[in-house]
């Protein structure tokens, strides 16, 4: 038979409670180290950042074999070897439902030409500013099919990185900003 005790009177239980806020007290921060530069995968649903400061019209060179996309600064666009290959593109920021942050180079009109692929991609990106979309190539149509998510999905959570940080990470070593850049050297046969 226990003697008369009262745990709520004998202990100040509220003051004994230890914090469980593990996510707040941790002192770690996720580092964004890689930003893919590519068209969204056909299985992904994506949203495009609608902010003007999260997009930029640029010149790019796509090296299909190496699967690399180079960003060409305006001063380098008329360089020999580059001039023929550079295409204007709108670089937009997008995020997948899984939280992967990436850059999408959307081709723009060059020499007055804009094919249905580029046109439908631009249209998809515009829709993705407001809704979750999936972009899938349709060879028989000769353009991208755009699929809108019909479910009520939450708004994306954009990480706090500036666009220039994303560009720097996305084009690590792939920014053509000087005549001695390896890409120019290669295209002109200097190496």
């Amino acid at each position, binding site marked *: 038979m226990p*003697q008369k005790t009262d745990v709520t009177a004998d202990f100040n239980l509220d003051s*004994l*409670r*230890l914090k469980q806020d593990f*996510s707040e*007290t941790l002192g770690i921060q996720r580092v964004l180290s890689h930003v893919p530069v590519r068209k969204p995968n056909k299985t992904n649903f994506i949203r495009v950042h609608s902010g003007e400061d999260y997009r930029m019209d640029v010149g790019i060179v796509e090296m299909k074999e190496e699967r690399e996309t180079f960003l060409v600064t305006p001063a380098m666009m008329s360089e020999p070897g580059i001039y023929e290959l550079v295409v204007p593109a709108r670089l937009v920021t997008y995020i997948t439902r*899984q939280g992967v942050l990436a850059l999408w180079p959307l081709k723009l009109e060059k020499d007055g030409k804009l094919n249905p692929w580029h046109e439908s991609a631009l249209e998809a990106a515009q829709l993705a500013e407001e809704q979750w979309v999936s972009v899938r190539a349709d060879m028989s149509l000769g353009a991208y099919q755009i699929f809108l998510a019909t*479910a009520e999905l939450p708004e994306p959570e954009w990480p706090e990185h500036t666009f220039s940080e994303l560009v720097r990470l996305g084009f690590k070593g792939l920014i053509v900003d000087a005549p001695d850049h390896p890409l120019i050297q290669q295209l002109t046969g200097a190496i």
Partner: protein
Amino acid sequence: MELGDFREIWFCDFEFYAPTGERPLVRCMVARELLSKRVIKLWADELGSEPPFNTGKDALFVAFFASAELGCFRSLGWNSPYWVLDFYPEIRNLTNGKTYPGIGRVRSLLSTLAFFGLRRMQHEDKRAMRDLVMEDRCNSTYSLQDRRAILDYCQTDVDALESLFKPITQRIVRCPGDLDRALLRGRYMDAVAEMEFRGIPIDVDLLKQLRQSWDDIRLQLIEKIDPAFGVFDGLKFKQAKFIDWLRCEKIPWPETATGKPALDNATFRQMAKVYPQVAPLHELRHSLGQLRLNDLSVGSDGRNRCLLSPFGANTSRHTPSNSRFIFGPSRWIRGLIKPEPGKALAYIDFSSQEIAIAAKLSSDLKMQRAYTSGDPYLSFAIQAGLAPDGATKATHKPTRDRCKSAVLGLSYGMREHSLAQRIGGPTIAARHLIEAHEETYRIFWRWSQGVVDHAMLHNRLHTTFGWQIAMNGEVNPRSVQNFPMQANGAEMLRLAAIMAMEAGIQICAPIHDAILIESSIDCIDIDVKRMQAIMQQAGQIVLDGFAIRSDADKVSYPDRYMDGSGREMWDRVMEVCNLNVKSARVRCVAIAQE
């Protein structure tokens, strides 16, 4: 509370004889006071009607595995000490999750001494003395020489306690509140003693019949159940025949690394949930393989008593012996639990305890709303857009079932393949459910990842009341993620048991997130309400005010207790025994908390 607040600090140990299922018969007691060095050594017949030392508010009682000592207190009709410091939970807490070279896991007094590098009695000497104590004989038949030897042996444990006092208290009392939290664990050991002392009433006549004919029953059960499967050859389970049956039923059974069907208990349990036709085979295999009725620990007063093994698991939950404890894994056997004439029992468990803990500790308001709705599974379905507003359990049962599987499975770190098996659907459907959960409860998932990060960064996790686990060697992130839910759930149950004991409620046993209580038929309804109020209060204390509900199953004499999932097997066993104790006579009344 500080150690300096105590005027006396008593180390105490008993030697006692406790045959299977019985209350302890005290042989002797030795106690020693830290400051005055006073020693009290008494044989059983010298022990009076109250403790021979101060057990009041200004004294600290120190023991190792105090539930045993406090069981002796009860046998002697003594009041429990006011303050208990038990070195067992403290050394478990200090070393939880770790193993040490030459010691392994630190759980006994000897390994605790070894852990601190202190001199200890040899195992062989200890065993010889234990054997002498455990002889089935009256205290008066021991010679004076034997009595002296046993008392001296008992004193070695008391001396060990004294030598451990400084190293242990130095390690456990580091921050304000540490000692209080240790004393709270000590007080729980008193509640454990209370439950072990009371035990669970068993229908011993029926148990005797079952024991006598168990071999026949096993064969007859196979004859009864196996025709639907055709997987037994005599008493032997044939894997090849089982594979044929699986093919026939088109059941995709999980395989081992060698490509054979996994036959472990966990796989059977999980598959039985997905494919109900597997359930009878699962229960049969378990009953044949693991159920040893003779091991069930029942005393001469017809009550199941066994070591409840508090703080046995890393989460600090109990780990009683599966074969000795009536609430072991064979659920049908629980039908042997039967209140005595004029008495009633109630099994009261926290409702969706893990979800409530996860919701509150992570501060995920959406998940809290889902819990508070009373049906967290359907709420998840609605919140995730998998069911429309206004959906009910009746209108959207399949969706709710899938969501329930996801909610429960994810709390254990289940991933898409296992969840697919559980919901009986393709992996893509399981992945979709997981993504829906991650999206709906983003705050929870961020916190859950924070739990793992914290554990990996600091090599340690702790509960609200200081139970901790160290990360050691290979860490399983799923166990780490689940730790706060399980270990804080254990804190809640401990607090509820202490409060119930102090309120005079007759507590019989802890069962994971439930407590079995006993009362007179006249008072059971009142006691259930009191117990539910206590459990709610315990929940609020652990979860900083968050209200957690409980459910109660009540059974009064002459009915017997029955776990729903064991009912079918119970009926089969009774049928083969030609016993007219069908589960129809088993009546459990479910009571939800208002």
